[in-house]
């Protein structure tokens, strides 16, 4: 899989750096894809998610209380932004402390299903973010990706290619 992580300046502030992922040679981030796929059917929910991402970047940081944790493998940081009781959207993220967050994609999760495995689209998005997290973790371990002094940025090689696998 070829991808790179890109900082979203629209959301990043002095509390957290907000990143998303660009797959292959796409011309959009995964967050843009998420918005595009849901803005018609779930406009207010999608807007609410964007407002919360902005608050995370500028007011609160990515505190664990805002996320449903353990959505991936143990210790990989994969989580989902909590949806409101009357909402049905799930957005997958990877958190690195409270100051760095990578936003992936997600989708509609009906309240009638409990596990994401019951929905093909959510399973696909969850698998994708787990793979991305795994590769980033390896780069961090190899010290090819580091954190900036204020922990609000990733530095180093943020592009991943097939041959890295």
């Amino acid at each position, binding site marked *: 899989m070829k991808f790179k992580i*890109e900082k979203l300046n*629209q959301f990043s502030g002095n509390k957290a750096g907000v990143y998303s992922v*660009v797959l292959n040679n796409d*011309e*959009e*981030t995964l*967050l*843009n894809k998420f*918005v*595009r796929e849901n*803005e018609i059917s779930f*406009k207010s929910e*999608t*807007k*609410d998610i*964007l*407002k*919360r991402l*902005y*608050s*995370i970047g*500028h*007011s*609160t940081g990515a*505190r664990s*209380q*805002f996320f449903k944790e353990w959505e991936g493998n143990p210790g990989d940081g994969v989580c989902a932004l*909590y*949806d*409101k*009781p009357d909402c049905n959207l799930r957005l997958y993220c990877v958190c690195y402390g409270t100051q760095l967050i990578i936003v992936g994609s997600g989708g509609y999760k009906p309240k009638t299903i409990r596990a994401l495995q019951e929905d093909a689209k959510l399973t696909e998005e969850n698998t994708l973010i787990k793979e991305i997290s795994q590769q980033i973790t390896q780069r961090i371990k190899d010290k090819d990706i580091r954190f900036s002094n204020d922990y609000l940025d990733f530095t180093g090689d943020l592009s991943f290619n097939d041959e890295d696998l």
Partner: protein
Amino acid sequence: METYKDEALNSLLSEITPSEQAKTDAKMLLAVKIADAMQAKGWNKTRLMKKMRKSNPSEITRWLSGTQNFTVETLVDLERVLEIKLLDLGEPKNAERTIKQYNIDILVPFNRSQQMTGCFVSEPSEAYTYYKQTIYS
């Protein structure tokens, strides 16, 4: 750095008014204050649930998620059990303040033989220096 257009994202973002954003900020900051107060007391969600006389732990999770639109009743109860301030009910900005003013005159006699730093008295042989002090309360 390469910039992505992200048209759908930026278009929806541009629809968010400062007022809407302020409401979301407030909800999330309230959640942070509650979580910090719980941590300071060493309380988990179950403990807060019992103190607030609630029966469903998921309600506490929702309060902490930053998505809850709290009622004043709930905020007042949270203030009481967590011993924190969540509502700023200080004086209204334009309220009239009563200012009491006291003028105090102090009369201090001294004679010319006394040395006072920064003070020179010639005649008469005895002078009085006034200190005027105004106190507001």
